[in-house]
């Protein structure tokens, strides 16, 4: 039995939302990076950095989700 179903649900929504946000942001950056690399291949390093920046969003989501899960009672 879950003590607080809403906490569990919130954790799920947090992960889904931040996951989608990250994916969308990386799509934009990734596309642009590949375009730029076609012109200047040496931009790979910079591109990689910009490409992985949005991942911070989902990491924050993970932290929040873990905090929420600590409110969920033991099954």
């Amino acid at each position: 039995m879950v003590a607080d179903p809403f906490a569990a649900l919130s954790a799920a929504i947090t992960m889904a939302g931040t996951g989608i946000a990250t994916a969308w942001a990386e799509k934009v950056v990734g596309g642009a990076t590949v375009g730029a690399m076609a012109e200047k291949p040496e931009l790979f390093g910079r591109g990689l950095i910009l490409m992985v920046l949005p991942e911070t969003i989902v990491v924050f989501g993970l932290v929040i989700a873990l905090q929420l899960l600590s409110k969920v009672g033991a099954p």
Partner: protein
Amino acid sequence: MARALMAGPRDKLPSVIATLHEMKLIHIIDHHGEDETFRIGKPLPPAADLSENLVKLRSIANLLAVKTPPKKKETVRIEELRGKILTLELNITEEDAARKKAEALLSDLDRRIDELRPFAALELALETYRGYGTIAVLVGHIVKEVSEADFEGVPTEVFQAPGFVAVFAPKSAADQVLGVLAKFGFTQIDIPTGEGNPEALLDEALADLEKWKARLEEIEGRLETLRDRHAAFVVAAEEVLEVEVDKAEAPLRFAVSDHSFVIDGWLPSARSAELRERFEAMGIFVESEEPHRSHEPEEPPVLLRNPKPVRPFEFLVHLYSTPNYHELDPTQFLSLAAPFFFGFMIGDAGYGALFIALGIVAMIRLNRESIWWRIFMVTAIGGVWALILGLFIFGEAFGIPFHPPPAHLEELSFETFGISIPLQPIIHKAFGVADMVYLSILFAAMHLGTAYIIGFVNEIRHNKKHALAKLGWFLCLFGLFTLLTFSLRWNGIALWVWNVPLGWFPRTIEPLGLSGFVGVKLPLVSLVLIFGAFLALTESVIAPIEIAGLLANIMSYTRLAGLGIGKAAIASAFNTILFRGMIFPGQIGFVILGIVFLIMAHLLVFLLGWISAGIQALRLNYVEAFIKFYKGNGTPFRPFGMRTTQEV
């Protein structure tokens, strides 16, 4: 680096260039010809011939499709090159022209055959489709069968084959007939040129096609033999010629007057004596000196010098940006942190051993110069960490724990298989989320703290204010870390860190006896430290806003925990499903299938882990840490004579 200047009489130029090329010592600074007396030099006389030969050779290599360097090396002498290239060119251009002709003919024939094929089915001579005054001939593909009755009184004659139709109708009614045909899905085609029975013409074209195909094969066979015989020569000659062209065109980078030349460049200071000795013996004036501390108009190029085990990591630094001449080389910092993070995220003895095995295979099989060699070396060092952490901290291999977690004895573990490993896990990933997160924060503090210290050392040498800012940020980081540790004391590791390594840290502000803030118990000293960030006001007015950014940076390291747990969870899910669902029931067919799936699943987890852990480990260094101290934007040291190797 030392700046070197060499000057000498012009007639000695060729021998000087040859020696420089052989020494591979000087990073030449190009002369731009802004001087009246000293203009940009002209290429040495053989340059034109050499480049022409090189162009010819490259086109030969292109025609022969020489891609991989052949196994056996061939030595080439420059004097014989020209003759050999000319004969080869003659042979090959002839064959190539023949091949092009055959290919053109074949594509013509293909088109002709496509055109003729439907007409062959109708068996009307080609000339019967043409040359009428009042009759329109409509020929084309059709979807449904059509009959003369469909044309509503227009006098027509219809010839049909499956999917194909020829309609003869009066020109005046052509539009009407087309309208009717449209309902039957008609698409008109052109009538092929030529006369006679289309079937005979088709057979003739098909025979021609076969003949030319055979001929093309013959030509390609001949080119193949030419490639086998000459590939080694072409590759070797290209190499030799590139070097010669490099040498012959070198004066374009020097300052040359009517009777003398000047070469300007950088070289490692330790070798200036060697340069002087060698060239003064040749009667060339050499002068070299260390750059002044002040800002030179031109930054010296940078040659990274690291101990051998760290060298594979240099490419990762170049990938971000080459360090500039005035800062510390971050390679060693990166070579410690990145593999450890990688190992922590993998955290599995089985995968760790696999990474090491891959590294060993790469060491034996791959060329040291290749980028893959370096990638495999770097991941193998990460694999060592993964193995150590997997054995002694997490106690698992291939997602299977050595012992089941205490409260979940039913979980799959090595004990299920009757294997008892005398290593007890300190953290069980799936049940120690808080431990993992706290460890991530601890690593964040250590990693970023080191980054600030390096930043401080970098800055103190030329800007005291900026160095002060780094110190402020270091204090701020420490304040945030103590605050986080304090508030996570409910976790065992955090409590230990709080009580033992941070035992000296003042819990209260003594003379006032304050131990909290508006009723909340807090270590106030931490708050004071966080305001250390205001020292960064010396850097920029808005810098202190970045305190939140620093907190975000620390939180960003929780990806270490997230990826570690996530990967272990995927592996253990595959294990549970496949072992319990397919292998344990014991039906032989399912067992085999289960093992195949198991291998594929682990391969997937392994590759995903490699990519994601690799990129994340790099990212934590590039984005979180490097920004704190690293500027980069230097020029890599490329001495004249060093062949440029392929970069990523």
